[in-house]
């Protein structure tokens, strides 16, 4: 084989490897999500849980689990945001509904996104939400307030040693991303 051919082969293989590794970098994103989803690492709770499955859960009357709610606002987010009840005691398998309160104290329309995280992360895969305000973005007009429901069931298979689950919500300001520049938006509001 001539040198030129050899070089061509080596270079082609190398470039294929480079492109593949560039792709692999991006593939790490879904891989990471899948990995966290399977293992419940990172306290990431899962998406919508089927209502039917939730109702079919065997209620474990023999023990109660403490579910605590924590809320916080990310950096400059001005909304008032808190759970109506800070803590509930539930039987595993029982379908529970709680509410969170949010109020937009500003004079403009705003969009928010709540991001959940559960501690200890081991419990994340046993915490099923059939309905949650965190599945969608919340839009509130100026000075509007709202009660946002969360419906969940703690899986009956929850390990015995987990007696307290703490669910934390962080509220992010998504106004700019969703409604465009906030200042421009203010002007629009005034014009209307």
């Amino acid at each position, binding site marked *: 084989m001539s040198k030129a051919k050899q070089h061509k082969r080596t270079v082609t293989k190398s470039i294929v490897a480079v492109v593949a590794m560039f792709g692999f970098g991006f593939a*790490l994103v879904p891989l990471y999500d899948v990995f966290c989803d399977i293992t419940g690492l990172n306290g990431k709770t899962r998406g919508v849980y089927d209502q039917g499955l939730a109702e079919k859960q065997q209620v474990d009357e023999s023990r109660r689990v403490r579910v605590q709610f924590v809320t916080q606002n990310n950096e400059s987010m001005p909304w008032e945001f808190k759970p109506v009840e800070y803590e509930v005691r539930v039987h595993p398998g029982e379908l529970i509904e709680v509410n969170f309160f949010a109020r937009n104290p500003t004079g403009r329309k705003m969009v928010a996104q709540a991001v959940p995280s559960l501690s200890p992360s081991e419990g994340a895969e046993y915490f099923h939400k059939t309905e949650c305000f965190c599945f969608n973005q919340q839009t509130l007009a100026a000075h509007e307030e709202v009660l946002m429901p969360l419906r969940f069931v703690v899986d009956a298979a929850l390990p015995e040693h987990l007696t307290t689950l703490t669910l934390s919500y962080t509220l992010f300001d998504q106004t700019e991303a969703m409604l465009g520049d906030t200042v421009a938006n203010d002007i629009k509001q005034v014009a209307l």
Partner: protein
Amino acid sequence: MSAVIDNHTNGDDHEHHGPAKGIARWLFTTNHKDIGSMYLWFSFAMFLLGGCMALTIRAELFQPGLQLIEPEFFNQMTTLHGLIMVFGAVMPAFVGLANWMIPMMVGAPDMALPRMNNWSFWILPFAFTLLVSTLFMEGGGPNFGWTFYAPLSTTYAPDTVTYFIFGVHMMGISSIMGAINVIATILNMRAPGMTLMKMPLFVWTWLITAFLLIAVMPVLAGVVTMMLMDIHFGTSFFNAAGGGDPVLFQHVFWFFGHPEVYIMILPAFGVVSQIIPTFARKKLFGYHSMVYAVASIAILSFIVWAHHMFTVGMPLAGELFFMYATMLIAVPTGVKVFNWITTMFRGSLTFETPMLFSIAFVVLFTIGGFSGLMLAIAPADFQYHDTYFVVAHFHYVLVPGAIFGIFAAVYYWLPKWSGRMYNETLGKLHFWLSFVGMNLAFFPMHFLGLAGMPRRIPDYALQFADFNAISTVGAFMFGATQLFFLYIIINAIRKGKPATDQVWEGAEGLEWTIPSPAPYHTFSTPPEVK
């Protein structure tokens, strides 16, 4: 690509004349020696620039309180110091050594892809101009640390972050092209009879480094591309509000970042493995185990990345896995260290400057390795994380590791490159000043870190004052010594005594069979290796 290859195969006519005249020689050269020299000079310029930034940092830290610079500027200095030293000084210096030495060591007439070689060098000045120019722009340069963790480098970054991203892209392309060139040269252009297991260790370590580069530089390109998309195109890779995850950034970054630290040290292993046998006048002890050790280190480097992020909130199983995997790296590294020592054992040692730097490399790199082991202990890492202990650790593996390796290589091969000897007395003085300055600068940082001084801060509590003052004195000593190094090199090139072909009494290998200085074209007809 076919143009590159044609150029090489039809290149017989240019093998018989010397270099072009004037600036054109350097702009259009495809000669591995010219390109190697340009890489080395460029990296030295970057070394001085990054060094000035380090001295700015050390000057501010000489005393507690804010004296000289604003905290915002301090952050830009720490960031650019790291980026310039990693991507501008250490990596191009090793690519320069590879360009000069690999063809001469394997008996090839040039690198496999000379035109691409020219290109991969000439990207670099533009990449670094782009990066450094941000200092003079509104908002200032990158200020988020060389690890550029999101969202600090996305949501909260200065607008100039886009220049930083394109700069990193360009450096990445340059490194990847350089790596492909090295691989093609080593795999396809060895002289007849030079089997893989007869290759000098510098060539081996570079082959493995090149594979690491090909594997991880694209991941770095990917992560900065994700940042670019988050900043400008509304994606949410690292933005929690949009469903992304900042911790994901750290995983992807360190997947690149940990192999990267071996990219910076493996060629230095190779250099030291060439030099110690020469001055011990013995064959390298355990050649095969050296090759396997380098390969194992490279493979292990892919499964230990999360030891940089023990404190992000990993499950116990994860902490244990990454802790033990990291500690496992000490085994092949220990094999290397013991092999170097055994090579010296009962050798006829002489202590010329390259040997001094190599011995210091073995001793001080081992100290850096041990502090690395301390950091690998996950429960203890919670205490050391983000303190000056970490700074001490990685400077111990990079300064007396990578940089002493480069110094040793320059002293060792300069007579072959230039045909002239450097002044041995001045060389030894350079070594001792560097050795003392470097230890004075970095050793106290261990104590500062263990006492709890956080890294990347422009001001600190009073009790850290004395060690910081010592550290600053050492840093300035080390920095000034490198200007002296520049003088030694220029003095050697201009007025040094002519060197013999073999240069060193105990030197073995193809590069010592050709005249000093190495002619513009070497091994146009391949040598026979027995």
